[in-house]
C-alpha cells in the first residue's frame, strides 16, 4: 500500500493524522475539563479528610472488625487488579496473534492497566491502616504466604505495564517533539527524555519492535499470576465460598470483563471529548463489543461452575452461605451483579444495533458496577459465615457496614485511578500516531521527517 502513495499524499495523510491525535494535548478543554478536574479534586479532598481521620484514629473509623477484617478496601483492591488485566489481554494476547483493529485502543488499554495496577498497590497500604505496617511485609513476610507473592506480582506487573506504555510512545514523542517546538519547557524535557534519542532509523524500529514483543510475551504469565495469586489469598483458606479450586481462572475471566468495560468507557470518553470519531469509529466499538461478549461468556461459564456445583451439593456450611447469596440478605447484590453485570450485557451485545458507542457506554457502566459489587460479595459474606458461630461479641460484629470514611477513601482511590488516566491522556497522545500512520500507508521516512 505504501508503495502506491506518492510523497505528497503520504505527507498530507500523515499531517492529518498527527494533527488529529496531537490536538487534544494542546487544546484548551475549557469548562468541561475544569468541571472534570473539580469533580476529581472534590472526591480527592473528601478522601484526604477521611484518610486523615483513619491515620489519626486507626482502622476503628472503618466498619471492619474481628470477623469481617477484609471489607470494602480489599474488594476494591481485587476490583483494581481485575481492571488492570485488560492491558495484557489487548496488547499481548490480541497483539501477538496479529489483530489489527486494536491499534486505536491499545494505548488506552495500557493506560487503564497502569492506572489500576498502581492504585491496587496503594489500596493495600490504605487497608493496612498504618502505612508503616507495609514494612512488616518485608521484615516478617513469609515466602509461603500468598500476600508476599501478591506484592511481588503487583510490582512486576506495574513495571511491565509501564514499559509497554512507554515503548510504543517513543516514536510518537519524537514526532510530537518536532511538531510542537513551542511547548512548555518541562513538557519538551519530558518528551526528550522519554523519546530516548529516537530518530527513526530502521535499527531503532527493529529494537522497539523486539522489546515490545518480548514484554508482550512476558506479561502474559505475569498477568495471569497477579490475578491468580490474588484469588489464592482467598482460595488457600478452607472457608465457605472461598474454598474453591477454580478461583484462579474464575478471577482471571472476571478480570477481562471488568477491564474491557473500562476500555469501552475510556474509548467513549475520548471519542467525544477528544473528537476522535474518525479513529475510535463505530467499527472499533463493534469489535470491542464482541470482545466483551466473548469474555463475559467465559466468565458466565465460570460463574455457573462456581455456584451451581456447590449449590447442588449443599455441603453443610456452604449451604448457608449459598442460600444467603441466592435468596437471603445478599440476594439483591448477587443477582444485580449476575444479571446486569454479566447476563444482560451478553444478550444485549449479541445484537449489532446495541454495539454502538452510546449503548455500549451504558452497558459498560452496568458491567463495572456489577463487577465491583461482585468483588464485594466474594470478599465479605464468607467472613460473616465462619466455621464456628459468631458469639460473645458486640452485636455489630454480626454484620459488616462500611462507614463514611471508608467509602470516601474507596471512592478516592477510584478517583485517583481516573485522575492518573486523565493526566496520562493529557500529556501523551491516547492513540499511537506512528502506528496509525503506518496502517494508513505512510512510510517511515515521512513520519520521521
Amino acid at each position: 500500500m505504501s508503495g502506491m502513495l506518492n510523497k505528497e499524499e503520504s505527507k498530507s495523510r500523515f499531517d492529518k493524522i498527527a494533527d488529529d491525535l496531537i490536538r487534544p494535548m494542546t487544546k484548551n478543554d475549557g469548562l468541561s475539563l475544569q468541571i472534570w478536574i473539580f469533580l476529581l479534586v472534590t472526591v480527592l479532598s473528601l478522601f484526604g479528610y477521611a484518610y486523615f481521620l483513619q491515620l489519626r484514629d486507626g482502622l476503628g473509623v472503618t466498619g471492619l472488625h474481628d470477623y469481617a477484617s477484609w471489607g470494602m478496601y480489599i474488594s476494591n483492591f481485587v476490583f483494581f487488579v481485575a481492571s488492570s488485566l485488560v492491558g495484557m489481554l489487548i496488547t499481548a494476547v490480541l497483539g501477538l496473534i496479529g489483530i489489527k483493529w486494536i491499534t486505536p485502543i491499545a494505548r488506552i488499554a495500557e493506560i487503564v492497566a497502569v492506572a489500576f495496577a498502581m492504585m491496587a498497590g496503594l489500596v493495600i497500604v490504605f487497608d493496612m491502616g498504618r502505612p508503616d505496617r507495609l514494612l512488616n511485609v518485608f521484615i516478617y513476610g513469609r515466602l509461603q504466604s500468598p500476600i508476599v507473592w501478591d506484592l511481588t506480582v503487583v510490582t512486576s506487573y506495574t513495571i511491565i505495564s509501564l514499559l509497554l506504555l512507554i515503548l510504543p510512545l517513543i516514536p510518537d514523542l519524537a514526532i510530537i517533539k518536532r511538531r510542537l517546538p513551542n511547548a512548555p519547557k518541562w513538557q519538551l524535557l519530558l518528551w526528550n527524555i522519554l523519546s530516548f534519542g529516537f530518530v527513526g532509523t530502521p535499527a531503532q524500529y527493529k529494537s522497539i519492535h523486539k522489546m515490545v514483543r518480548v514484554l508482550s510475551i512476558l506479561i502474559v504469565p505475569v498477568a495471569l499470576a497477579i490475578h491468580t495469586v490474588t484469588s489464592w489469598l482467598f482460595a488457600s483458606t478452607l472457608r465457605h465460598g472461598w474454598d474453591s479450586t477454580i478461583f484462579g481462572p474464575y478471577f482471571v475471566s472476571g478480570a477481562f470483563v471488568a477491564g474491557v468495560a473500562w476500555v469501552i468507557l475510556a474509548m467513549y470518553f475520548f471519542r467525544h471529548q477528544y473528537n476522535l470519531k474518525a479513529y475510535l469509529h463505530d467499527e472499533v466499538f463493534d469489535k470491542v463489543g464482541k470482545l466483551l461478549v466473548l469474555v463475559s461468556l467465559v466468565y458466565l461459564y465460570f460463574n455457573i461452575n462456581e455456584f451451581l456445583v456447590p449449590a447442588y451439593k449443599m455441603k453443610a456450611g456452604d449451604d448457608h452461605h449459598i442460600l444467603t447469596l441466592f435468596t437471603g440478605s445478599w440476594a439483591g447484590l448477587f443477582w444485580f451483579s449476575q444479571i446486569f453485570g454479566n447476563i444482560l450485557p451478553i444478550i444485549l451485545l449479541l445484537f449489532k444495533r446495541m454495539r454502538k458507542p452510546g449503548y455500549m457506554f451504558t452497558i459498560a457502566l452496568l458491567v463495572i458496577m456489577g463487577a465491583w459489587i461482585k468483588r464485594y460479595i466474594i470478599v465479605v459474606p464468607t467472613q460473616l459465615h465462619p466455621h464456628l458461630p459468631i458469639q460473645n461479641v458486640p452485636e455489630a460484629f454480626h454484620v459488616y457496614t462500611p462507614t463514611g470514611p471508608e467509602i470516601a477513601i474507596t471512592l478516592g482511590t477510584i478517583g485517583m485511578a481516573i485522575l492518573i488516566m486523565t493526566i496520562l491522556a493529557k500529556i501523551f497522545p491516547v492513540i499511537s500516531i506512528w502506528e496509525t500512520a503506518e496502517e494508513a500507508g505512510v512510510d517511515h521516512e515521512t513520519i520521521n521527517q
Partner: protein
Amino acid sequence: MNRYNTLKHIALALTLTISNIGFSQEWTVPEDAKSVVSSVPFSEMTQQQGKDLFNANCKSCHGAIGANAPLPLNPSPGDPASERFAAQVDGALFFKITNGRAGMPSFKNTLSDADRWALISYIRTFHPNYKGAVAENPSAVNTFKGGNIQMKVSFDDEKHMATVNLSGTENGSVVPASSVRVGAFVQRYFGQMKLGEPIKTNASGVATFEFPTDLQGDSIGQLKIIFKLIDEDKYGLVVAEQTVNWGEKFVYQNPLDQNALWGDRTAVPTWLLLSYFGVVLSVFAVIGWVVLQLLKLKNLK
C-alpha cells in the same frame, strides 16, 4: 441385550432359590448359648429401654410388635409377639440377635450386651406365659455376693501382663471374689482408653490381662494403667492404678521445625524458594534487558 437380560434373570432366580434352600431350615442355637441368661433382672426400666431400642433398630423389619406385620422377606423376620419367639428361651433369642443370619443383621457390634438383654426384656412383655429366667435360674448368675472388694495388681513387665487379684468379705469372712468383671484402661489426655474387653475373675478371684506391646507412652515411655470394677453400681468404685515403663517412647516432632508451607519465614521449603527466586529473577532479568536496550536506543543508527 435381550439375551443378556434373560441370563441375568435366570441367574437371579437361581441365587434366590439357592438362598431359600439354604435358610428356610431351622436356625439352630448351640446348647451352651441357650443356657445363657441375663445377669440383670428384667424390670420396667429395661423394658422401657428395650422398647426404644426396638423402635430404633428392629421395627423396620419386624414391624410394630403385635401387629403381625413384618417385612415380606424370606425367611420371614416374624412378629416378636408371636409364638415363634415366645417358644424360645432367652439364651436362644440373645444368640440370634447377637449373631444374626441372612436377612437378620448381627447386632454384636452395634448394641451392647445390656442393650440386647433390654430388647429381650421388652419382647417378653408380649409373651403372657413367660416366666422370668433370672429368677428361675439363680445359679446361672453366680457372681460374688459379698462386698468390700479389695484389688491387688501385680505386673510382669517382661511379658506386658498383669494379674488382678480380688478378695472380698462374704458372710463375715474374707474370700476370693470370683466372677467379678474387671476392666483395664490406660490414662490419656482426655480420659481413659479402654484396653480390650473386661475380664471376669476366676474361682480364686484372679483375672489375667495381656497388653499390646506397642502402647504409646510419654516421652520416657511411661504409661498409667488403671483397673476398675465394671459393676460399679454393685460393688462401689474399686480402682487400682499402676505406672509402668514399657510404653513406646513418644518423640514430639514440632511440625514448625520442618521446611514446609506452614513453617515460619526461616523454614521455607526449598522448592518454593527456588521457584520464587527463579521466577522473580527471570522476570526482572528480562525487564533489565529491556531497560538496557532502551538506553542503547539512541546509538542505533
